[in-house]
């Protein structure tokens, strides 16, 4: 994957390495147009797995409340990982416009829900995205859709942030991209250390946001105000 020239150095500096790029492409290319039959078969495998899980946990899978739970849980899981089947090209192609605008564009407080890939337990929070257009702007809701595509997968918050940033960088070739995600991880709240109020903040700064401290400060001031 070739990155736009202006961004190459900051990509390297911020450690957007080969692996992250491969993962970004690898997964989105994995599932093309899914075959109907394949889908149904996979659904039934997942359903059987959930039935096993319920009975191993000591529940009675025949009781009324649980009768269709394996199917519902399987469908819910498929919904929560539907990002694997979606690609950036599908949603962005039509919504990039030529505009003579070079000031910061911020979309903040984008609600985000994802699944922790280590425990298969949700984490959720908000994403704040900013970019400095270089003659090309994107429809604003597309930024939120990019967040959706990558968050509806089994994720690690760090990788999620990076994937969102690199997708925007690739599609728009802007002068800079910044992504901040602030999320609460149920795997820390509901189990393990059980800290109710802890949240995790990750950020990726590319281009001018990385090189120019003032730009970065402006972004942070505008998004992190409560």
């Amino acid at each position, binding site marked *: 994957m070739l990155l736009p020239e202006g961004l190459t150095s900051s990509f390297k500096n911020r450690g957007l390495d080969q692996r992250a790029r491969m993962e970004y492409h690898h997964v989105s290319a*994995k*599932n093309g147009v899914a075959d109907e039959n394949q889908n149904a078969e*996979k*659904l039934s*495998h*997942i359903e*059987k*797995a*959930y039935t*096993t*899980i319920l009975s*191993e*946990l*000591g*529940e*009675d899978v025949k*009781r*009324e*409340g*649980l009768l*269709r*739970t394996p199917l*519902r*849980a*399987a469908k*819910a*899981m*498929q*919904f*929560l*990982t539907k990002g*694997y*089947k979606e690609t950036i090209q599908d949603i962005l192609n039509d919504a990039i416009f030529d505009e003579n605008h070079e000031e910061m564009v911020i979309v903040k407080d984008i*609600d985000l*829900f994802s699944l922790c*890939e*280590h*425990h*298969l*337990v*949700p984490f*959720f929070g908000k994403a704040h995205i900013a970019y400095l257009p270089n003659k090309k702007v994107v429809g604003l809701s597309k930024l939120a859709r990019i967040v959706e595509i990558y968050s509806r997968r*089994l994720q*690690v918050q760090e990788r999620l942030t990076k994937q969102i940033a690199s997708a925007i960088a690739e599609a728009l070739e802007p002068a800079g991209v910044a992504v901040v995600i602030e999320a609460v991880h*149920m*795997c820390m*709240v*509901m*189990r393990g250390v059980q800290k*109710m109020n802890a949240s995790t903040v990750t950020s990726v700064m590319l281009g001018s946001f990385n090189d120019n401290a003032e730009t970065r400060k402006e972004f942070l001031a505008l998004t992190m105000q409560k």
Partner: protein
Amino acid sequence: MDHSKQTQYSQNEKKDAGASSSVLNGHFDGMAKRPAGGTGRAATAAAAQPPGAESSSHRPAASVMESWREERTRSVEDNEMSLPSLAAAYTTILRGLGEDPQRQGLLKTPWRAATAMQFFTKGYQEKIIDVLNDAIFDEDHDEMVIVKDIDMFSMCEHHLVPIFGRNYHRSYLFWCLETACFMFVRLSTVQERLTKQIAVAITEALQPTGVGVVIEATHMCMVMRGVQKMNSKTVTSTMLGVFREDPKTRDEFLTLIRS
């Protein structure tokens, strides 16, 4: 089956015409109303299914009482033995979703997810008796006791997705521990039933003049999928004894928990 709901707590006060629901030694007479999502059988979800459970749908009071004396459906040894098949099930799920279970981030995920799930449902391993027995004291106190803002986490039994929220409960006459609600919340459950189970357990353990339990929770199955309403909350309540009969007492409770 769809969860409702923005159940207003007053709706739980169904008009049992003339039913007296005074609590006598833990026996309920007027407990004919059932939560929308549960049946008589469901009330023993926390218990091993005794053979008589099938017929208990007509006798909700009896089956609800049994939860106090239930057997554990699971032990620590069971947990260890079922771990491999749980992990295998999770591996199947990962594959079915199109992921590669061999990649580094997912390598031990089936085991982690299985242990996490066992933790989320560890209420199956616990009994009320164990949790409460040593901590009931005689005290000459007959004013309201409220324990509020108890964080609780549970799993929705329809989608196996977390529910979390706050719990307020109280009783008359004796000091009660909030560990009771920690046990019940670990079960995969329906919120209506959960509220009732907590109230019933406290009643049976302490025989107070009344118990009120209110749960306000966010259902991730509604927030993360389905209707995807971010800010909706579900409120359910159970009022037993004097809380049900005396509106003033109920009002006091509800005002105090809202403040």
